[in-house]
C-alpha cells in the first residue's frame, strides 16, 4: 500500500486509472439511463414515478458507501500514517455530500406523489439528514485549522467516531419512527425486486461508483497540488517573514 505513497507514482496511477473509469462511467450511465427510461416497466403501484428510484437508490448507496470509505481512509491514515489516506478521505467528503443532497432531493420528489408529503420525520429519511450533518461537520473540521496536519488528524478522528455513531443513529432513528419501506435489494434471501428493474439499477450503481472514484482521484490530485503550492509559498516567503516579529 505504501508503494502508492509516492505522489508522483500515485499521479501516474491516477492518470492511468482515470480514463478507464471515464469509459466505465459513460457506458454504464448510458446503459442505465436507457434501461431506466425505456427498458424497464412502470411499477404496478407507483406508475412512472418509480423511475426516480434509479437515481435515488444509487445516490443513497453512495452516501453511505463514501462515508464508510472516508472512515476506512481515516483509519488507514491514523494507523499506518499513510500520507495519501487523509487526502482520499478529504476528497470523498464533498462527493458524499453531493450524493447525500441528491438522495434527499430525489426522495422528497418521490415522496410527494407516493406518500403525499415532501418531508416526513421518518426513520431512514432522518438518518440520511443526520448523515448530511456529519458530512458538513467533517468538512468544517478540515477548514477550521491553519495547521494542515492538525486538521487532518481531528477530521480523521471525527470520521471514525462518526461512523460508529452512524450505526447507532440509524438504529435509534428507525426505532424512533418508521415510514420508509424496508430494504428490498441488499437483504438476506436475495432481492425482492424484479429483474427488469434490478438491471438498470445495477448499471446506475456502477455509474455512480465510477463517478465517485473519478472525483476522489481528482480531489486527491488537487489536494496534492495544494500541498505542493503551500510548501513552495512557505519556502519563498521564509526570508521576508523571518524579520517579522512572530506574535502568534
Amino acid at each position: 500500500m505504501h508503494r502508492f505513497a509516492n505522489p508522483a507514482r500515485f499521479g501516474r496511477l491516477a492518470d492511468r486509472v482515470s480514463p478507464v473509469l471515464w469509459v466505465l462511467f459513460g457506458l454504464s450511465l448510458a446503459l442505465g439511463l436507457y434501461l431506466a427510461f425505456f427498458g424497464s416497466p412502470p411499477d404496478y403501484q407507483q406508475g412512472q414515478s418509480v423511475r426516480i428510484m434509479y437515481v435515488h437508490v444509487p445516490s443513497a448507496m453512495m452516501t453511505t458507501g463514501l462515508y464508510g470509505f472516508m472512515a476506512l481512509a481515516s483509519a488507514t491514515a491514523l494507523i499506518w500514517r499513510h500520507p495519501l489516506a487523509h487526502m482520499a478521505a478529504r476528497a470523498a467528503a464533498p462527493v458524499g455530500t453531493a450524493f447525500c443532497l441528491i438522495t434527499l432531493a430525489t426522495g422528497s420528489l418521490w415522496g410527494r406523489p407516493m406518500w403525499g408529503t415532501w418531508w416526513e420525520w421518518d426513520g431512514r429519511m432522518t438518518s440520511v439528514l443526520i448523515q448530511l450533518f456529519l458530512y458538513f461537520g467533517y468538512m468544517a473540521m478540515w477548514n477550521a485549522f491553519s495547521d494542515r496536519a492538525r486538521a487532518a488528524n481531528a477530521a480523521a478522528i471525527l470520521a471514525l467516531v462518526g461512523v460508529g455513531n452512524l450505526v447507532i443513529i440509524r438504529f435509534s432513528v428507525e426505532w424512533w419512527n418508521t415510514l420508509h419501506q424496508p430494504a428490498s435489494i441488499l437483504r438476506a434471501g436475495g432481492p425482492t425486486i424484479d429483474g427488469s428493474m434490478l438491471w438498470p439499477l445495477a448499471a446506475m450503481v456502477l455509474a455512480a461508483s465510477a463517478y465517485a472514484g473519478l472525483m476522489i482521484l481528482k480531489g486527491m490530485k488537487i489536494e496534492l497540488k495544494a500541498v505542493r503550492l503551500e510548501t513552495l509559498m512557505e519556502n519563498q516567503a521564509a526570508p521576508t517573514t523571518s524579520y517579522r516579529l512572530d506574535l502568534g
Partner: protein
Amino acid sequence: MSLVWRDIAVLSQGGRALALSCFFLVLAASLFPFAVGPDTKLLSAIAPGVHWLLALFLAVLHGERIFVEDEQDGSLEQLRALGFAEGSLMFSRIVAHWVIAFAPQIALTVVVDIFLGAGLASAGQHMLSLLIGTPALSCLAVLAAALTLGARQSSLLMIVIVFPLMIPPLIFGVSAAADSGSAALMLLGASSLISLVIAPLAGHFALKAALK
C-alpha cells in the same frame, strides 16, 4: 482521582460555574411558557423534550471552555509532564463537566417540572432519564472540545460536530423520560456506557495531536 478533584475545583471556579448552570436552567425553562404559551397541558407534554434540549445546550455551553484556558496557560502541558496520560485527562474532564453541567440540572429537575406544570409524579422519571443519559452528553461534549481545541470559531464548530452525535441519547432520553415502561432507559444506559469507552479513547488521540 486527585486529577478529578483538581479539574472539578478549577473548572467550577469556586462554584460560580455551578451557580451559572442553575441560573441558566431556571431562566431557560421559564422562557418556554413565553414561547409556546402558558398552556400547562401543552407544557407538560413537551416537558421531557425541554429537559433534554436544555441538557444538550448545557453540555455544549460548558464543553466549549473545558480545555481552552488550561491549554492557553500551559496547565495541560504541565499535567502531561507530570505523567498523566491523555486518556485520563479526558476522563477527569468528563467527570468535571458532568458535575458542573448536569449535577445542577438533576437537582433542579423538580423546579423545571413545576415551571412546566408537569407535576411531581413525572419529575422522578425525568430525573432518572437525565441521571442515566447525561454521562453520554458529557463524553461527547468533552470529546468535541478536544477535537476542536485551537480551531477557528471553535465553539460554533464544536456545536456543529457534536449535535448530530447527540441525537441517539436525545431520542432515548426523551423516550425514557416520557414513558417508564419502555426499553429506552436501557438503550440510554447503553449509550452512556459506550460513550464512556469511546470518548476517552478517541480523546486520547485528539489531545495528543492538539498538544503536540
